[in-house]
């Protein structure tokens, strides 16, 4: 009887506590992303590496590919550069928390959804920086004639958005693995397949090759599905 009274008291105390709303989760997500960006801009560990790698790969591709083929295969090459850069770069958002042992502190103060949102937003910010620098350089290196600039920007941005969502969500699953750098691409590539093919098709269309019918819509729908799955599973993924 006494234990029952005690439990009722406990539940009442907890019920009165502050409950996280969606607005609070979004606010916390923005705070986590801002914190990550501040740390990144101070240490420049990830961004410098990502930019250097992107520019180096683009330069090597532009020197190796014959000019006659450049326009046709450049969409795939551009996407390959983003893939190489993103696979290593986007997983850093979670890896840094694990390596510095701050993820436990974050879990004490923020909801799993806010943590995931924060990492996605932070990676999106990285993506925009990389995209803004890399895209003009890549176009110049390959001397590409853009038939539909808005389609090109939409394709690259939406493709990267989907990539960031999938990479951010999956990196949490491999962070404690000893072979995490190898494991991430293995589980990431199959899930990225629809995004890769749709984005390459849309970029090709922007350059005047083929049609991008429904490619952008497919990327959007796929990204939305992956985002929902990620938010539904993040609590399980974050707790050992």
């Amino acid at each position, binding site marked *: 009887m006494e234990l029952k009274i*005690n439990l009722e008291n406990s539940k009442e105390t907890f019920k009165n506590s502050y409950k996280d709303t969606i607005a609070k989760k979004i606010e916390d997500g923005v705070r986590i992303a801002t914190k990550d960006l501040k740390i990144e801009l101070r240490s420049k560990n990830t961004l410098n590496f990502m930019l250097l790698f992107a520019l180096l790969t683009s330069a090597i591709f532009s020197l190796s590919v014959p000019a006659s083929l450049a326009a046709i295969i450049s969409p795939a090459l551009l996407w390959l550069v983003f893939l190489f850069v993103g696979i290593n770069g986007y997983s850093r958002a979670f890896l840094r928390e694990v390596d*510095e042992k701050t993820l436990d502190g974050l879990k004490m103060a923020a909801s799993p959804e806010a943590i995931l949102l924060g990492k996605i937003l932070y990676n999106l910010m990285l993506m925009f920086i990389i995209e803004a620098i890399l895209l003009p350089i890549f176009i110049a290196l390959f001397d590409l004639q853009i038939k539909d600039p808005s389609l090109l920007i939409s394709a690259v941005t939406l493709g990267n958005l989907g990539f960031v969502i999938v990479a951010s969500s999956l990196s949490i699953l491999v962070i404690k693995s000893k072979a995490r750098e190898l494991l991430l691409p293995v589980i990431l590539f199959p899930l990225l397949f629809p995004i890769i093919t749709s984005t390459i098709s849309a970029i090709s269309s922007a350059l005047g090759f083929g049609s991008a019918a429904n490619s952008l819509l497919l990327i959007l729908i796929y990204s939305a599905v992956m985002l929902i799955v990620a938010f539904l599973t993040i609590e399980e993924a974050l707790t050992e």
Partner: protein
Amino acid sequence: MRMTKTTVIEIENLWKRFGRRVALRNISLEMEEGEKVAILGPNGAGKTTLLKILAGQLKPSAGEVKVFGAKPWKKVELRRKIGFVSHSSLLYRDLTALENLQFYSKLYGLDYDTKKMNETLELVGLYEQRNRRVSTFSRGMEQRLSIARAMLAKPEILLLDELTSGLDLEGRNSILSHIKKNFRDKTILMAGHDFDELEEVCEKGILLNSEIKSVGSLEEIRKSWEVP
């Protein structure tokens, strides 16, 4: 009418396994509001694992664990009521001491201004170093900031894992007196090896070695703990 105290921690038949290794074996424990209990035991006894489960960092392999009637790994609102000081400071090394506290206070939903932050930093003796990055801190300074972080939200429960490790005598005394003064009516579970330190805060103890070996006053625990 009989006054009943709130049960804040309930553990029933808790097991925790890491692969084949059993870290905690059939632990049952109940703590009421305001109780202060020390957990003692050799290295690898499961003290940190137990605290991590209560802090919602780990899930039990079997058994029931409830804090304020709910599973701590399920509710962040509940975890915010727990102040957790662990082996690692849980601080961002590229942020300053003040930025770390500001970041955490916002996540905790606290409306603290810089003055309040500075008071907290003063309390742990880090006001002068508030604008220094944590990466430049000594182990003791980091631990003091970690304690400030854990106590920021005025938690209902304190889980303290080797609280004063890395602190000098002055730092140790100041932190212990702060806890005794400001957390008098809070529930504290404190793991460590230093009987004198544990005796300053806790009224009873648990001797743990994967399973609960004995429960009693710290003096009784001291006697029952056969040091090899």
